[in-house]
């Protein structure tokens, strides 16, 4: 079927090109008359349906008339068909019905009824349009969209106009602006007009445009404005009028100032996001380091295990509960925690327990464990990254300002981290287990004398620390790749958090992680990501000169250890 249809089309095209010249000459006059006269007479006679059908007409001039007609009717229902015509996805059946193909071109639906149609059973042809029709088409679509009742459609249309201005629509925009009630759309309408007004001959209009741009314009206007300040080879300004130039340079500095604030706000958010991730990664590390004085080099692998646990839960849902797929993440939270916690407890019982008082050797032994864990994951899941999909409520983001999109996943992680930190804090401060953990952290020997089973506490704490890292892995799976080396990427940074924040206090870890996140993100645009990291390292070493035990060191007797 497809083959014959292309052949058929080909023949038709040939005929068309032969007779094109005659066509144009003959219809040129007719078109001129028809465009002016017909719509008026036809508006009342024909209803929307037949106007839409006119899009399937065989002559270009009739298509053009139909398009204009639809534009005058102002019925937004015509937009899909018109857009399909512009994007070459509109086809006409033998019976004259309009079929809109979807993007893949395999399926289509009727433009009027919206019903799915079987493409194979129909003989289809494409309507032929030329540039003149296309111009009218764009104008009409823009017009229909600008007057649409849906403010989202109006917004999209206005943004499109800002990107690809078309001078013919200025009058329409002015009209639409007068009626517009939505502030966001109004603003963009104003910008469209201002952009247009810059090239006007009327000085007053230009100054007015510059004023608008100065007040609400964004970075996209900078090139236009800079063009106003350019000089020719002799060093003379291309723009003769000094008031325009002054106004333009004011507008530029105002835009730059605004952009600076927007960038800072974005940095703030991304710093907070990075900091919260580091916090999840480092929280468990700080707890176990504070308690036992050992650095767990395999801590990064606990993150990785949490992430892979999320991946496994996701796959199970995909397989057995596809209807509830979007809720896999909620189920994954306890599972990621438990998986990492169990591995952590095994690790503590089998290796770390035997190395008390030998912190450096613990470091090496846990490094060995991390190698084994990485290689095991590689053999089980493969060395490639696996994909963990965002559930629908975490995909996408909210655009708070022009150019600043906050992804929902990152916002969710920040909230999640707050929840985790509060839980851990409550656990350590308000429960008897927490009391015992703090007692052992402060003075192991004395706690033991008072009847606290330090071995048990060590085990629980290690499980808790590892479990929190597992939650960190779950969070990371929502914003980045999940691979066997996931933990390695964050381990050095989480060590830095611990060094910076000191041990034994959650507040230290929170401040350390957020501080590191902010400093990193604010240095990145200035110095680049890598130099930023090096500067951070130097800063940490400098800070340690002043406070060797971190920002929030425990005071008193324990401080010496």
């Amino acid at each position, binding site marked *: 079927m497809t083959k014959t249809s292309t052949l058929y089309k080909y023949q038709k095209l040939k005929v068309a090109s032969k007779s094109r010249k005659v066509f144009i000459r003959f219809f040129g006059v007719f078109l001129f008359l028809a465009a002016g006269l017909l719509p008026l007479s036809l508006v009342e006679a024909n209803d929307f349906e037949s106007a839409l059908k006119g899009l399937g007409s065989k002559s270009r001039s009739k298509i053009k008339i139909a398009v204009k007609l639809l534009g005058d009717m102002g019925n937004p229902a015509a937009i899909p068909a018109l857009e399909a015509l512009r994007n070459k996805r509109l086809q006409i059946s033998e019976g004259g019905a309009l079929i809109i193909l979807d993007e893949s071109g395999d399926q289509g639906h009727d433009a009027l009824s919206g019903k799915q149609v079987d493409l194979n059973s129909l003989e289809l042809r494409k309507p032929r349009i030329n540039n003149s029709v296309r111009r009218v088409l764009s104008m009409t679509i823009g017009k229909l969209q600008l007057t649409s009742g849906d403010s989202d459609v109006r917004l999209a249309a206005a943004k499109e106009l800002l990107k690809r201005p078309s001078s013919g629509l200025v009058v329409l925009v002015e009209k639409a602006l007068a009626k517009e009630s939505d502030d966001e759309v109004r603003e963009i309408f104003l910008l469209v007009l201002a952009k247009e007004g810059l090239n006007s001959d009327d000085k007053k209009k230009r100054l007015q445009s510059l004023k608008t741009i100065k007040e609400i314009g964004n970075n996209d206007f900078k090139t236009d404005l800079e063009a106003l300040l350019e000089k020719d080879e002799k060093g003379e300004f291309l723009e003769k009028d000094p008031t325009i130039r002054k106004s333009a340079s004011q507008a530029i500095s105002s835009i730059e100032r605004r952009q600076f604030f927007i960038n800072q706000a974005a940095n703030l958010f991304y710093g907070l996001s990075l900091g919260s991730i580091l916090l999840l990664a480092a929280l468990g590390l700080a707890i176990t*380091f504070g308690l036992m*004085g*050992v*650095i767990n080099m395999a801590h990064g692998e606990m993150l990785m295990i949490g992430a892979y646990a999320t991946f496994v839960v996701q796959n199970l849902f995909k397989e057995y509960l596809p209807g509830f797929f979007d809720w896999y993440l909620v189920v994954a939270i306890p599972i990621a925690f438990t998986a990492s916690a169990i591995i952590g407890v095994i690790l503590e019982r089998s*290796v770390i327990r*035997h*190395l008390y008082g*030998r*912190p*450096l*050797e*613990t*470091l*090496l*032994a846990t*490094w*060995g*464990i*991390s*190698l*084994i864990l*990485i*290689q095991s994951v590689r*053999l089980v899941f493969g060395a490639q990254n696996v994909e963990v999909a965002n559930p629908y409520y975490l995909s996408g983001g909210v655009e708070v300002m022009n150019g600043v999109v906050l992804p929902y996943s990152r916002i969710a992680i920040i909230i999640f981290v707050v929840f985790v930190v509060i839980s851990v804090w409550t656990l350590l401060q308000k429960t008897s287990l927490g009391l015992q953990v703090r007692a052992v952290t402060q003075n192991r020997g004395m706690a033991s004398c008072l009847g606290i089973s330090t071995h048990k506490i060590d085990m629980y704490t290690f499980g808790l620390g590892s479990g929190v890292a597992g939650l960190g892995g779950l969070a990371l799976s929502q914003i980045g790749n999940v691979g066997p080396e996931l933990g390695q990427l964050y381990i*050095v940074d989480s*060590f*830095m958090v*611990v*060094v910076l924040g000191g041990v034994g206090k959650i507040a230290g870890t929170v401040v350390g992680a957020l501080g590191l996140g902010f400093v990193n993100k604010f240095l990145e645009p200035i110095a680049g990501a*890598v*130099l930023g*990291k*090096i500067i951070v*390292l130097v800063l*940490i*070493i*400098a800070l*340690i*000169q002043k406070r*060797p035990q971190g920002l929030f060191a425990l005071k008193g007797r324990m401080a010496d250890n």
Partner: protein
Amino acid sequence: MIKKIVTLHSLKGWLFAFGLLGIAMVLLPLLNIFVPEESVLHVPDYMFSLLGKYLCYALVALAVDLIWGYTGILSLGHGVFFSMGGYAMGMYLMRSIGKEGVYKSDLPDFMVFLDWKELPWYWYGFDYFAFTLLVILILPGLFAFTFGYFAFKSRIKGVYFAIITQAMTYALMLLFFRNETGFGGNNGLTDFKRILGYSLQEPSTKMSLYIITIIVLFLSYVLSRYVVQSKLGRVLTAIRDAESRVMFSGYNTLHYKLFVWTLSAFLCGIAGALYVPQVGIINPSEMQPSNSIEMAIWVAVGGRGTLSGALVGAGLVNGAKSWFTVAAPDYWLYFLGTLFIVLTLFFPKGLVGVFSRFSSKDKVREPS
């Protein structure tokens, strides 16, 4: 002075050391030159590059043992000093390629590739071997001295120091990975042609490099042995075992730690410089944190606080690595990981410790 050096080892010890030296420097080259290739006893040419590489690692292990085994300071950043020496040598070798690179330009190939017009200032001087040698001998030590001064002054020790050094090597690795840094980025420096006018492809050059490495290693060993058996060495061991008490006895531990730390970096830098012409490449992955941790395991395998153990450990671990990566690449990390765990749990004194159980005559220093 000479008397002191002679008394470093017993007569048996010296005989053993010179015996090994004789085998490595005389017997192996003779077996390569005079024994026909069909013979079982023939030592193939490639063996000298391989052995040379292991000897460089042994020199690194010696350096790590000084700082970790004797002074109790675990550094996870020795890859940086190794790479500094390596990159300095690599830069000289790059410059001596001349116009014979792929692009026939005076600039190193990667700079032409990145469309650089002239040599960055920090490449000046590397046309001269004497200058390069000076950089190799001074830069790693100087860098270590500066870093160590600030770290030791604020009494960073134990795990904190290990973490800080790890962060240092990590940060520098990221820096060297960038093309803009001007050291060849990801690919590093490679495709060397000659050293001091001798082609690096020639077996004779390879053998000369190998013999130079042996001599350097031997001298470094004697130097290290001299240091650890001097009074200064005793103080270092005391710092390892009870730093506070040493301080209370009136010693400024900062000076001692700084000295041995700088010496260790110095030896490591030389090892890097010898490594590059024999292996033919230097790239930022040498600065991966994992590489520096592996260096610690070489020492742990042989036995900490016994210089000879470090040499043995470096050879054994790297030999095993070479074997595994060919025979069972998937299981190398398992082996290495298990090695880390088993050693720390069951054999904290390493191989030397295992042997000394059987012969109680050799006293092995107790590591902390």
